């Protein structure tokens, strides 16, 4: 595809854009942005204010989107890799977030569910929760790679049991952290008016980008997803690579879970990150990635995650009636998914090509 865009003539520029994978989430973002701009331009207003602690913060719908969409974007990174390598999705991420969030609070609070001081440094709690979440990722990964169970079935186990495990970790109590520094990660660091989760998401993105650029991870994941047998014949270990993607997803889960519990300094096992697995899968699909594995584009998935949050914020802004909310969401999602279907994109590309230069059509074959 890269070669294609480089050699493409100016005339077929539009067509090549349409063919590019990242076109879909960008188009979706643009459509939502234009819609909001036409209906109410004040949607994009960002104001500088102060919170009740007197620290400066920016607020506005755009800030809400980059703030609340961050966990989903982080999950989308891991979910894309898992999807690409194992040709299936992990549906236990919501439950796993409950577990890792529960671990964070357990370490911070010790046995007392409402301590006045932290029982352990925050970084320790975070690292332990990373280990736990990666262990659960490894569990899923083992089931998928060694026992060759369908990913959705394998992760169904944790999906069912996860929230009970999370409750059990804290003896079914609801710990509350009163230390203010803990709220920085899901809120604002004093003096910096942009929400911290956005920085965390950017850091995750840069790390992934570096990992994909300087290691063969991306290539290996892709080849295992495209054809397991050939990649084994070429000296790769498909089981190991699938396993690694699940562990990476575990790490993403731990980071997302950490942000989630930091937002409110507490956790509710039954509703925290509810249905986030479906949103994460949707983000991967909106990014134009095939859900049956193979080629992938992480940036597109991340944009997809922010598209979902953009949609949610838009629906809240326009005060869609409560009982009709899922229906509206469904309509938009259907439209986006149809737009992202390869067959539709081919047709669109052909259409643009025809419009711009029917004569030079043969130059690009």
């Amino acid at each position, binding site marked *: 595809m890269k070669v294609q865009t480089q050699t493409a003539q100016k005339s077929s520029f539009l067509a090549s854009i349409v063919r590019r994978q990242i076109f879909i989430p960008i188009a979706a973002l643009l459509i939502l942005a234009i819609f909001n701009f036409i209906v109410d331009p004040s949607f994009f207003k960002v104001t500088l204010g102060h919170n*009740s602690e007197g620290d400066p*913060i920016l607020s506005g719908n755009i800030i*809400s989107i980059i703030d609340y969409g961050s966990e989903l974007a982080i999950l989308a990174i891991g979910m894309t890799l898992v999807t690409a390598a194992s040709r299936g999705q992990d549906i236990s991420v919501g439950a796993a977030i409950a577990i890792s969030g529960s671990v964070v609070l357990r370490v911070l609070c010790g046995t007392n569910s409402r301590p006045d001081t932290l029982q352990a440094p925050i970084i320790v709690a975070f690292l332990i929760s990373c280990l736990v979440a990666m262990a659960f990722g490894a569990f899923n990964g083992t089931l998928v790679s060694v026992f060759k169970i369908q990913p959705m079935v394998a992760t169904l186990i944790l999906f069912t049991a996860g929230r*009970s495990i999370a409750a059990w970790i804290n003896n079914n109590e609801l710990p509350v952290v009163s230390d203010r520094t803990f709220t920085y990660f899901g809120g604002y660091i004093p003096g910096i008016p942009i929400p911290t989760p956005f920085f965390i998401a950017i850091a995750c993105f840069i790390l992934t980008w570096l990992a994909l650029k300087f290691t063969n991870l991306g290539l290996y994941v892709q080849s295992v997803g495209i054809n397991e047998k050939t990649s084994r014949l070429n000296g790769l270990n498909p089981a190991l690579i699938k396993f690694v993607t699940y562990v990476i997803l575990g790490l993403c889960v731990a980071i997302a879970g950490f942000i989630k519990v930091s937002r*409110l300094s*507490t956790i509710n*096992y039954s509703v*925290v990150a509810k249905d986030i697995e479906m949103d994460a899968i949707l983000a991967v699909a909106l990014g134009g990635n095939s859900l049956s594995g193979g080629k992938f584009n992480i940036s597109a998935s991340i944009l997809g995650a922010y598209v979902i949050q953009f949609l*949610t914020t838009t629906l*809240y802004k326009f005060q869609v009636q409560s009982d009709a909310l899922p229906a509206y969401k469904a309509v938009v999602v259907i439209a986006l998914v149809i737009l992202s279907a390869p067959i539709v994109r081919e047709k669109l590309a052909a259409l643009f090509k025809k419009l711009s230069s029917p004569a030079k059509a043969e130059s690009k074959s």
Partner: protein
Amino acid sequence: MRIKKVLAMAASTVLCGAMFVGCGASGSSSSNNEANKPDATSKADTANNDNSSSGSLIKVGIINNDPNESGYRTANVNDLKATFTKENGFDASFAYSLKNEEQINYAQKFIQDEVDYLLLSAADTAGWDSVLKDAKDAGVRVILFDRTIDADESLYDASIVSDMDKEGEQAVEWLKSQDLKAYDIIHLQGVMGTAAQKGRSGALDKTAKELGWNIVTQQTAEWNAEKAQQIVQSAIDANKKFNVIYAENDDMAKGAVAALDRANISHGVDKDVVVIGFDCNKWALEELKKGNWNYDGQCNPFQSTYIKDIIDKLEKGETLPEKKIIMDEKGFDAKTITDADVEQYGI
């Protein structure tokens, strides 16, 4: 490959075995440990060992929803466990599930075990007729608690219910008594269609219509704090004016307050925004005590004393005046709540 197959066979056999132990009426003696492990999700605490010595004890089978479902349920389960003890003259078995079919299976098992009383908090309202008929034929008395079911009244002896309508009405009544200059309300709803949502929304909708209160935003946050935060944030970003937050549970109230804090809007007793929550979580009552919130409505999880009362009466051969018993629900005002209230009613 062959080793893998053998391993898989072994694993599945073990799993099947575990299932039978969990669900079977009587585990073999070697697997008693397994059966008595207090597993919250699906296994019944069969407590088979006590069968012989239960002559003088009243045998009750309690079917409840998963204690991890919510703080409310945890308090409910703990309350039942504390009341139906051997010291109080009961031989109680517990079974938990959020699925109706599984609950029905447990009910059948309890009937086979010849319990005297079947206490039931049904996951779903439908599908209970035939098993309750079996119970009646076997002479098992049935007491429903917390939730009602769609079955003929003759099939059960008593039903103890929370009155969600009343909870909402009490809160709205309180709000009315505050005599605010204007009522601009952000209404955060629970999961649409649940009994708690219907009752709590219904009361507010009705009064708002009657008295011309302005509902600025009405949106479901699905009991979720973070969604509530986003909804309130969105109202603030749109420069909406409001002075009341009516959240249908404590979590959503907490999320709303987080959004207010972010925008530096004061809330609580004698402040700009009145905050109302429900469920009386302990941490919520503490917020109330500190004056950060204004009102919290109770959804009473302490049903065991009501149930015990009924059983005592039935054991003495008395008849119950009413089949449907509605529990008292309290509501707490930040101005009058005491530390004792927080301790006693916080869940």
